[in-house]
């Protein structure tokens, strides 16, 4: 019998915040929006949103290790008790999340359990739209972060930097689609540039810089955007050249993106919102190997990222938030994987985070057609980030009032 008391080092202190007081947090999650905290919000705060795309299995991420129903539902793909990095007498991290465990032990990780929304959608495409546009009922053309940007910079005004919001990837995620703020999608430093032979590039600059607006209402806008696009890559490289990472990052693609995120944050690029993706978590078959590999990228990448930021004195103004379009079903399937499900935990990580466990772990026996019931609406998490981290009123952005959580 493994020692069910061998919790992570800081478990006693966080137990006060979380595990031992679930009722208090259930109350907080359903309460009115918290009154102003009497603290100012740093206008330099940065939000890093991490999409775990494909639908991350929550039960093998935050493992309800002492629940027999968990072991019964997953005879092959369960994480054995002895391997779980225990947070308290009920739950613990998948061991692949050891890096995240270190940050948790420092008190910099909030685990929000059982996040979802009513009438959950199990299509990757539609569920992703729902999470990223924050609109379960109706499709929207703009994302929740895009709408925040539109309100920070109303029509006719522009962010001071072209890199105010950046998607690390070669297309814009729905979350960052704004009505009028231009968001850069940067697949890589080399790709984000006007790429051609030198003499062509030089003369293209002459053409774009010398363009004069014409009669068509579109021509002036296109000429100005072309000029920005042309110079954007060089400007980006110049701005981030002064930042030297203080740690060695892992070599996977996700860690490379986080390294670029740290460069953006640590230089004068003026970046406030960053979107990164990691996947695919769509583990219909042979789940353990695939999910564990990805969770290790997540945990180790975030550890390197925050160690780097801390060495530069930046970790307190960076908040990383994970999400996934859905969790997975409770029972493993016949291929030692799991199929599309519902609620899942998400992580908020950073020097400004009140570490601990928020919300109740969903019951594995009180199910909705074999699926977990959600306890916290994902828009409460968004409201928290908008109100308490970015200093925005969330009601119009989310088309409703959702109670903030005390995670930051």
């Amino acid at each position, binding site marked *: 019998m493994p020692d069910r008391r061998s919790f992570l080092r800081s478990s006693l202190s966080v137990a006060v915040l979380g595990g031992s007081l679930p009722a208090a947090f259930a109350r907080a999650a359903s309460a009115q929006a918290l009154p102003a905290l009497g603290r100012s919000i740093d206008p330099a705060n940065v939000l890093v949103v991490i999409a775990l795309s494909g639908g991350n299995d929550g039960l093998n991420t935050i493992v309800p290790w002492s629940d027999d129903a968990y072991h019964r539902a997953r005879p092959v793909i369960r994480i054995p008790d002895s391997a779980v990095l225990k947070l308290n007498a009920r739950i613990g991290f998948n061991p692949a999340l050891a890096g995240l465990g270190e940050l948790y032990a420092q008190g910099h990780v909030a685990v929000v359990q059982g996040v979802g929304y009513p009438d959950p959608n199990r299509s990757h495409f539609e569920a992703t739209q729902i999470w990223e546009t924050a609109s379960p009922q109706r499709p929207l*053309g703009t994302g929740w972060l895009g709408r925040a940007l539109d309100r920070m910079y109303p029509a006719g005004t522009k962010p001071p930097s072209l890199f105010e919001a950046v998607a690390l990837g*070669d*297309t814009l995620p729905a979350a960052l689609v704004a009505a009028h703020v231009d968001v850069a999608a940067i697949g890589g430093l080399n790709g984000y540039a*006007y790429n051609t032979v*030198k*003499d062509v590039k030089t003369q293209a600059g002459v*053409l774009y810089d010398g363009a004069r607006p014409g009669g068509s209402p*579109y021509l002036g806008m296109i000429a100005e955007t072309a000029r920005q696009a042309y110079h954007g890559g060089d400007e980006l490289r110049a701005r981030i050249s002064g930042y030297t990472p203080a740690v060695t990052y892992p070599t996977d693609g996700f860690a490379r993106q986080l390294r670029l995120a740290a460069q953006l944050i640590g230089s004068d690029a003026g970046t406030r919102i960053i979107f990164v993706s990691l996947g695919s978590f769509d583990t219909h078959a042979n789940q353990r190997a695939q999910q564990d590999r990805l969770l290790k990228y997540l945990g180790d990448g975030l550890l390197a990222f925050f160690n780097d930021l801390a060495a530069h004195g930046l970790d307190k103004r960076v908040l990383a938030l994970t999400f996934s379009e859905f969790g997975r079903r409770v029972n493993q399937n016949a291929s030692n994987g799991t199929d599309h499900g519902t609620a899942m935990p998400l992580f908020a990580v950073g020097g400004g985070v009140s570490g601990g466990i928020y919300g109740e772990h969903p019951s594995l026996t009180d199910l909705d057609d074999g699926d977990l019931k959600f306890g916290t609406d994902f828009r409460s998490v968004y409201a928290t980030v908008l109100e308490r981290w970015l200093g925005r009123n969330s009601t*119009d952005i989310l088309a409703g009032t959702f109670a903030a959580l005390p995670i930051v």
Partner: protein
Amino acid sequence: MALISLDTSTDPQVGYRPSGTLDAESALAPYAGHFGVRQAAHLLRRAGFGGSAADVARTAGLGASAAVDSFVHPAAPELPFEAYPPREVLYAVKGGQARTGTELWWLDRMLRTQHPLAEKMTLFWHGHFATSIAKVPPALMARQIDLFRAQGLGNFHALLAAVSVDPAMSVWLDNRSNSKAHPNENYAREVMELFALGLGEYTESDVKEAARAFTGWAYDSHTMSVSFDPRRHDDGVKTFLGHSGNFGLTDVVNIIVAQPVHQRFLARKLLEYFVYSDPEPALTEAVAQTYALCGCDIAITVGTILRSNVFYSARAYRALPKSPIEFAVGLLRYVGATSVPPGLPDALRRMGQEPLAPPSVKGWDGGPAWINTTTLLARFNFVNALVATSRPAAGAIPAAALSGAPNVAPDAIVSAAGGLDPARIVDAIVTSALQDDVTGDVRATLVAFLRSGGDAAMTVNPMPFGPENYQEKIRGALALTFNLPVNQLN
């Protein structure tokens, strides 16, 4: 939780109406003015996907009326295009390849079709009835595209009825799950909001009642077909948009199409696609009347627009941004490419318009939403990889994609210009590619480019324009021309 209204119906193109005043009286009267290369190129870009300089000259030679006829009633037979690859073939390859393969199948048709207006309308209806390969199997997407091609210039009433039982749509908006026991309102709502009437033109009760009428159309994934199952149909009395009866799917479609607001809804959308952004209400009303008088005949309505004074007015000329597909396919048609580069779907995704994959049920916003720094860089780098050099970077679309592309062959351009004179070569390029729609500054900059020292990596420093570097230099000048802001306008 108090839901507040989040306005998502705002037309993003408001503010992009051309300056000047509409002459509403004569706007839709047939155009009788000069029909030269500018008017011909305008027609080719709007009613199709552009063309080569030779296509422009040939179209100009027809005169306005016969030129429009050649689009609306093409005399030339269509090429013998391969039927969509059978399911077994597509599923023998990996999932992503089935998606890309289906997209290439359609893009090839856009490139080589002899009936460009039918294909342009197919793209219009794909954006209008926006269905995505992200949820729907590729074979069903292909069948839906075939439906738009077959009926896209027919009668809207028949098209809407066909779309309502189309397998791809049945999967996409869940009407396959709509039964008497478990009504699903998804299709009932969108058919009114997005396809025919617009937000605010119906009540929530209308949505519920229409959903009841739409019950019973089951999708069979083995036969990949939709059929009516009376056991799943709600055959009670419904009250819908002021009418009551034991309505089924056809009745609801009939009632929707008869709404006067539908005529304006579709008229405005056609004007924004073919003429300019944010059309005046008087112009929308005039097109709506034409559409109503001909009983929802799409070919007559679109033909009226393409023949009209307002279509050839200065206010409509280069007044719309090219969509990524218009930009990329137009470029390939201009240069005379005979096949689609395999990397085109990925390039289009970066430009913001992967065919068969609209971002949501609302389709692509279009207009100003096509233009941002990321999507423009994707356009520019697509061009640069295609034509700027004969030595493209690793991973770029190889210039070999343009083998058999006579109109970017430097020797052909030198021959058209009558020699290696930089000014005459620039003349030849901007006249052929842009109907001379460039300022003197741009022309001078392109001439200066041809005269400047070459790329250090390829020449022995500074080398005046001449026999040793004209190939690379002309390719560069072409790329600079294609990447001009004015060439982003349709």
